[in-house]
């Protein structure tokens, strides 16, 4: 896809956040993912141009970080935590069943382009294990059945909302724009904390 003048203006505004332009390379990579869904050659070229770098320098950064995708992912990118704690508590079973249920493997996309699957590392929600992420939103305390229901709802075009997140699951491209630091106006939606987060506070108020 071609980058319009308006896109370039957004990219320039991202660069202005930093004392030195090169620091903007990561949000710019998130930004090109928000346009194309993944890091395309055109996206690399566009970043290289605005930062006055070689394309190879941008590619070198892009390939280091796992969130930058070299190929398209689904409209809803599902990550199942299979780091030790989540794996033991059920993450391995959830990941295996989702692969089977969707008929795809790790880092693959369903034929309809709706759902892609990835086993992910610890996502800082261990007190909500087993954890599933979709477009990097939290789906806490998952089971094999709830995870299957979740991906079914995505394929039906009406994804279940995150446990701790906005009222509606945004698409991969929309989430990528948030990760580029652009506001989608949804910060006020969703809970401020889930029950495990509040457990110690609650017990303390009970005098325990």
């Amino acid at each position, binding site marked *: 896809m071609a980058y319009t003048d308006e896109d370039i203006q957004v990219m320039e505004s991202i660069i202005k956040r*930093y*004392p*030195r332009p*090169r*620091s*903007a*390379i*990561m949000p710019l990579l998130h930004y090109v993912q928000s346009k194309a869904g993944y890091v395309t050659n055109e996206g690399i070229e566009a970043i290289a141009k605005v930062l006055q770098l070689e394309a190879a320098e941008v590619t070198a950064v892009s390939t*280091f*970080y*796992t*969130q*930058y995708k070299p190929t398209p992912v689904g409209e809803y990118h599902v990550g199942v935590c*299979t*780091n*030790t*704690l989540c794996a*033991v*508590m*059920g993450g391995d*079973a959830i990941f295996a069943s989702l692969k089977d249920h969707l008929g795809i493997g790790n880092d693959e996309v369903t034929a309809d382009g709706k759902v892609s699957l990835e086993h992910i*590392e*610890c996502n*800082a*929600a*261990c*007190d*909500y294990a*087993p954890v599933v*992420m979709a*477009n*990097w*939103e*939290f789906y806490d305390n998952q*089971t*094999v059945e709830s995870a299957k229901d979740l991906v079914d709802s995505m394929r039906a075009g009406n994804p279940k909302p995150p446990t*701790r*997140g*906005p009222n509606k699951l945004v698409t991969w491209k929309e*989430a990528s724009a948030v*990760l580029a*630091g652009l*506001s989608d106006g*949804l*910060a*006020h939606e*969703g809970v*401020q*904390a889930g*029950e*495990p*987060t*509040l*457990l*110690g*506070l*609650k*017990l*303390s108020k009970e005098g*325990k």
Partner: protein
Amino acid sequence: MTKLAPVLSAHWDEKDSFTLEGYKRHGGYTASAKALAMDPDAVIQLVKDSGLRGRGGAGFPTGMKWGFIPQGDNKDHYLVVNADESEPGTCKDTPLLMANPHVLIEGCIIACHAIRAKHAFIYIRGEVTHVVRRVNQAIADAYAAGILGNGVDVVLHIGAGAYICGEETALLDSLEGFRGQPRLRPPFPAIAGLYARPTVVNNVESIASVPAIVNNGAEWYQSMGTEKSKGTTLYSLSGHVVNPGQFEAPLGITLREILDLAGGVRPGHKLKFWTPGGSSTPLFTDAHLDTPLDYEGVAAAGSMLGTKALQIFDETTCVVRAVLRWTEFYKHESCGKCTPCREGTWWLVQILRDLEAGKGTEADLAKLLDLCDNIMGRSFCALGDGATSPITSSIKYFRDEYIAHLTQGGCPFDPVASTLFAGAGA
């Protein structure tokens, strides 16, 4: 008498705790106003006197770190907040930022004043979309209210999935727009950090602890905790327990006390092993239930307080499987810069996979330990050291279990039994 002491988490149960209004209702931004009226050196002294130590794992005294920044050098100084929370088991900064991002912003204002910086960067991991929204909105609201932009600017920098960027110098390279690989030290960030300028890198919880210290004083903070580990901190309990969650308590509480509050290990099961501070801290067993969870107590018992990520595993868990999975994580996250870590973690995985499948020999255990010996202390950064912790500690406490895999020709455990939904038709 309650053993808990919510300070950071005191108002998380209010629905609007993450908003500027919700934060101000409980004295939000009064500490920064107070600090800005103080001499910067007095703020550093206050934080030194409080005894606050880094909550990101290393436990370095925060005030001392601030004091290393050269003064009157006519250079830009930077504050960088490490919000790249990725250590397996660690889940405290993420809920903190979701529930109360403003306390971090206020901490940034105070810290910037102390170290004479005009610019703070918050480096947050990229896999937490809603937390990014919350922090970005809080920054925008703080600018709109004139809290930011009058001497201090805060920029949110969003990562993209790399555990190594939690290492402070790799984080700086990443923030400068490069692959996140650690730097040789010295020079330390205090002398040549971001853009080769004097830089303080602090964990989220460390900076978020500062406003309460400014408002309540060093003596108040000193009154909590143990002799050398002062104040309160977030303990994150996860795994095979009845009620997992965040427990903010004075440093020095024990796992037995926290487990009592959490309803214990899940019914019908018993504690087998646990991490005191994430997967990079050597494992503990039920012999360590009464170890004081402060920097000295945990170190004296042979591990590290780390991030206070208490991951609990009961007797249904195969320790070899657990350790293999962590090792696969370190292999995946090794940045590739240094040979001991890049090659070493790869070989550790090969050997552990064979052992788990019952295909190895007892000599492989010696080989694992030898490999660990050649990684520990010889790697460029702490990632390599951390990778050896679960292996060496598990062989120390559970050697027989490794051997059982060999004698039985496979894993003696049923993985279904360790799941949360075991027996629920999973």
